[in-house]
């Protein structure tokens, strides 16, 4: 699996080669090739994958709508009713989704109208951070399913610092963020250490550590003196002190907080780390081919440990963003909100590239924000968003399928490689 996709008809060693170049492209006029790349290229595939997934979601919404099935009952008498009912239900749903995610035209004024967009960014903040962590691990050939555990531990660490100490503004926040990142990094680092030292499979270990973290946090939440709020019997923590909370980024009328700036910084940092630094080069070398990297003198085991430390730390940042930004009034063991798993799809959609993950995170944040609005106004369960998201990733992963559906030409030289996630690790 560490090999990139080589399309049928192309022989040769499984090196990182782009898909087959049609021989005909050499004789084609130049603009023709450009057209091909625009129409069949990976950006177009991404857009079409979104369209296709939304279409499938629309079908699902229409099929399960009561009014649609009622109108289908007398289809032959008045077929127009069915068309109208389908249109109403699907367009209503997607309008609500858009208004909940980007701009709400029904609200007066720009401030109120633009609020959904800031909600999108708020939801995107932890998604991007965790997606960066998962994506970074992918690049080193590791599959980090342990986002949930790393987020929980990070949330507990950051939360504990945020209410246990009284420190001045600024310093307190930085300490709490650092504690969370270190917590996540340690929880991820355990995985890297075990893999490097004993060869324990990271997929198993991360899955198991998710449960260990969940029960550990549940225990601490109901034990007075650890994480439980004093004077309460609920498994809930005290609220973070205001000195440790992320300040609002755009003023008190929006929920968007400074965590978003941290996440932008993290994206830039990961980009620098992977593409410009010595360590990142070694990371990628190990991810491409661990054997070659070992021969070249790179300590593969060390890279596994570092990669899991970084990965856990980034996922930890997502946990920090949750407790210091979104849920500042005390949290329970559900604080991770499934972000650890969503992050995997975010990383896949972003093809494990930092900026790709950034925009994928924003897209998924938009779906999340819009999904809640859709559920509230149209009564369509938010789970439809999960369906659409997974379909998008599925379609993007298989460009030939999307091209076949839309009868697009094959691109000439554009690389359609999937992220070289090298999940061979799973079966190593």
């Amino acid at each position: 699996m560490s090999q990139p996709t080589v399309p049928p008809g192309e022989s040769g060693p499984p090196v990182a080669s782009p898909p087959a170049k049609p021989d005909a492209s050499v004789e084609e006029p130049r603009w023709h090739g450009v057209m091909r790349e625009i129409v069949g290229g990976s950006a177009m595939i991404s857009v079409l994958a979104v369209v296709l997934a939304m279409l499938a979601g629309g079908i699902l919404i229409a099929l399960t709508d009561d009014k649609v099935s009622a109108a289908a009952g007398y289809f032959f008498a008045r077929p127009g009713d069915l068309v109208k009912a389908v249109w109403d239900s699907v367009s209503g749903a997607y309008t609500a989704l858009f208004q909940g995610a980007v701009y709400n035209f029904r609200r007066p004024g720009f401030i109120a109208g633009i609020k959904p967009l800031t909600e999108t960014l708020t939801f995107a903040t932890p998604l991007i951070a965790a997606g960066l962590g998962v994506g970074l691990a992918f690049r080193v050939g590791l599959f980090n399913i342990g986002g949930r555990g790393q987020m929980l531990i990070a949330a507990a660490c950051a939360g504990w610092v945020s209410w246990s100490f009284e420190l001045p503004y600024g310093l307190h926040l930085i300490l709490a963020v650092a504690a969370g990142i270190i917590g996540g990094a340690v929880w991820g680092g355990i995985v890297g250490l075990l893999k490097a030292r004993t060869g324990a499979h990271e997929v198993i270990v991360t899955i198991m550590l998710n449960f260990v973290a969940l029960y550990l946090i549940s225990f601490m939440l109901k034990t007075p003196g650890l994480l439980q709020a004093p004077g309460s019997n609920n498994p809930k923590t005290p609220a973070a002190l205001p000195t440790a909370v992320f300040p609002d980024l755009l003023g008190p009328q929006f929920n968007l907080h400074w965590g978003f700036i941290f996440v932008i910084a993290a994206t830039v940092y990961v980009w620098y780390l992977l593409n410009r630094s010595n360590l990142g080069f070694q990371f990628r070398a190990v991810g491409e081919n661990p054997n070659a990297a070992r021969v070249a003198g790179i300590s593969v085991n060390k890279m596994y440990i570092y990669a899991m430390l970084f990965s856990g730390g980034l996922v930890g940042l997502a946990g920090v963003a949750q407790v210091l930004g979104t849920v500042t009034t005390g949290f329970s063991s559900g604080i991770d909100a499934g972000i650890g798993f969503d992050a995997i799809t975010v990383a896949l959609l972003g093809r494990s590239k930092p900026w790709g993950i950034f925009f994928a995170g924003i897209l998924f944040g938009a779906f999340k924000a819009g999904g809640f609005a859709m559920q509230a106004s149209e009564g369509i369960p938010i789970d439809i968003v999960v369906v659409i998201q997974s379909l998008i990733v599925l379609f993007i992963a298989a460009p030939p399928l999307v091209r076949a559906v839309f009868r697009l030409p094959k691109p000439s030289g554009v690389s359609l490689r999937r992220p070289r996630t090298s999940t061979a690790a799973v079966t190593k």
Partner: protein
Amino acid sequence: MNAERPIVDENVSRTELKTAVADAPLQHNHPDSLPAALETTVVKSWKAPIAFGIFSIIAILLFVVFGREGTSGFRLSTDSDFFQIPTIQAPTRATDIVLTVLLVALAAYSAFLVSRSRPVRLWVTVVFAVLFLVGFLTWASAGATIPVPGLLVGAVGLSVPLVFGALGGVISERVGVVNVAIEGQLLAGAFVSAIVASVTGQPVLGLLSAMAAGVLVSFVLAAFSIKYFVDQVIVGVVLNVLVTGLTSFLYSQVLSKNTELLNNSGTIRLPRLPIPGLSEIPILGPVLFRQTIIVYILYVAVAVVFFALFKTRWGLRLRAVGEHPQAADTVGINVARTRFWNVSLAGAIAGLGGAYFTMGSVGSFNKEMTAGAGFIALAAVIFGRWDPIRATLAALLFGFASNLQSVLSIIGSPVPSEFMLMLPYLVTIFAVAGVVGRVRGPAASGKPYIKS
């Protein structure tokens, strides 16, 4: 049973490897070749003695230093049994001290074996584990009585979907397709079987439809990974999310609005069918032979999969495709087709396991009711080294540990329930890091085969 695969086991044939390496300098040593074999020659494996030592220390601390007074009871038969066995009453502290001494002796024995470069046999580990478990149960049940049949019945119940999932995983990975989508197959099976069984009132149709649902998930996995060469783990993960989203959406949108017709637990749940005669065996009877039809299918499935995988032409071909597709192709096996249909078969088995969630236990479908069982099954596959029997045992271990927690919390264990819940996962990490170590799956698992 793994004779044909080079499993790297630290405990076996260390001396042979050593001599092989001593002769090695003459040979050209490619860095890619035999890295694992070279690593194992470096040290004697002290993993087993160290692990035993740690557990012995835990035993001394828990059973002797913090030992509990009183008597521990083990109820061995249920009221409805034909043969009644009296409840065993054991003095807690004395029993535990005896067991601790035995544990320490076993640990010392294993250390002695390793120091003499002799392998630590499997029976030592098994005896050690059983003694430790009995010691722990005795300690935890001081002043109370553990219903042993109840503990085991619950354990089997929790294990059933895990075993089905693990069997599906074993088949799929042996043929060369990583099956992360077990969770999705289980959930799809649970969902579809509930609806079909509820609407038609026919349990057989429910089971068949569960298999069909699992196959459907497998089709997507197979199509994307075999035809489009998409990374199999990615497809698996995404499929899990897709099935979770789809079933949750349909549950909220359709099922919950018409529970009477579509999700009626009265029609869905299967009756228990005690096997005459066998079900009266003490302890084993109620545990193994007073179950639903799905569990009996499971017994057959484990045996059949094991036999077919290692003793039939089908199994040989399947494993050949998973180990070395090019060689299999050379001798005329259609790799893509073999993979496609066997992945589908794996989906059918896992889907049947999903039916147990609804038809075998709870009775009605609920959102995300598999709750990560597919991932545990995946862990069981790797823990069981891609072997149907070992994977089954691993799945049983997980089921037992989860149920142990609930039984102990009922009788009032001194350990917080969260730590008991954590135990199976910690044991798994420990086992994977210590005992299993660098496991090797089927060589071509996860790699798309592109015919040149």
